């Protein structure tokens, strides 16, 4: 048993090391196309419902995509500046990523809060169920239950 335990320990160590190694590895430098894709994935097509510019083939999306490509190619603006350029022209409904501030941030905060709160509820439920335990049974209890089990088995076999 001791060996099993040490094997498990070794396994966890190995996985940890490999994960750290994998996390520190990078996928090569970002190309312009990667930047364009990253930006357009976060922008909503203004004429469709819910699709991103990256997904949508609507004419307006094509225009915005080529504008993003133009600005990326010119190299004058950062990704955030390009996103905010588009946002200032088309309004807040083109931001697919809800904002971090104001009422909008609720859409991020509520699920997280709900998760933590439900985990807490689950935890209290567990502890409540466990504290319900009465003390160990007396001999009389054992006899009563044995009798009941026997009765039940008889009634079922009929």
């Amino acid at each position, binding site marked *: 048993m001791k060996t099993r335990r040490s094997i498990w320990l070794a396994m966890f160590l190995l996985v940890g090391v490999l994960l750290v190694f994998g996390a520190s590895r990078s996928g090569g430098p970002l190309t312009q196309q990667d930047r364009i894709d990253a930006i357009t994935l976060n922008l909503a097509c*203004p*004429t469709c419902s819910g699709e991103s510019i990256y997904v949508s083939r609507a*004419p*307006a999306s*094509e*225009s*915005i995509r*080529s*504008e993003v490509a*133009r600005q990326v190619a010119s190299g004058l603006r950062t990704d955030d500046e390009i996103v905010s350029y*588009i946002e*200032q*022209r*088309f*309004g807040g409904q083109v931001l697919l990523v809800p904002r971090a501030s104001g009422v909008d941030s609720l859409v991020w905060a509520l699920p997280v809060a709900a998760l933590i709160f439900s985990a807490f*509820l689950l935890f209290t439920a567990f502890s409540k169920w466990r504290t319900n335990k009465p003390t160990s049974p007396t001999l009389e209890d054992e006899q009563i239950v044995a009798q009941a089990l026997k009765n039940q088995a008889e009634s079922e076999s009929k």
Partner: protein
Amino acid sequence: MKIVSACVGVVVALLFLVLVVSEPDQDIVAKSPLLGQPAPSVASTTIDGEPFALERRKGSWVVLNFFNSTCVPCINEHDLLVEFAASELANANAAELYTIINDDSSDAVREFFTKNGGTWPKITDDNGTIAVAFGVARVPETWIIDPNGIVRLRITGELSAGLLTEQVNRLREEFVS
């Protein structure tokens, strides 16, 4: 348990309320972050190859009409634009009308204007740069820019009769240069 169900009940009721009140609204005079801001500096050429730079039109009232020859509301409102252009000719402080071609070929636009009239400049907009600069997602849209180069009005959708003249005159009085 009861508290949780009460919470769920309240949330559902609120959701229901939101769904009941949610109704798409449609205004002809649309909002835009650009209103009251300097117009984006855009430059292109007309379909006849003349250069066009919006900045250089400061000093005039400018009306930009985003247009596509296959879009039905654009076709419907065309006569109103022709009328507007003619009526502006008489005005000393005449507004200049420009058509910005949206996702359409120059030939189709030329053909459309020969058939339906309209001699004002037609500006090409390759890749939709101008449309994006103004945040135009769907044609037709009409924009009014004052002589100081400030965006004053955005109209989405088809124009109604007299709307454009009325708005331009109102703005001219409001923002006397």
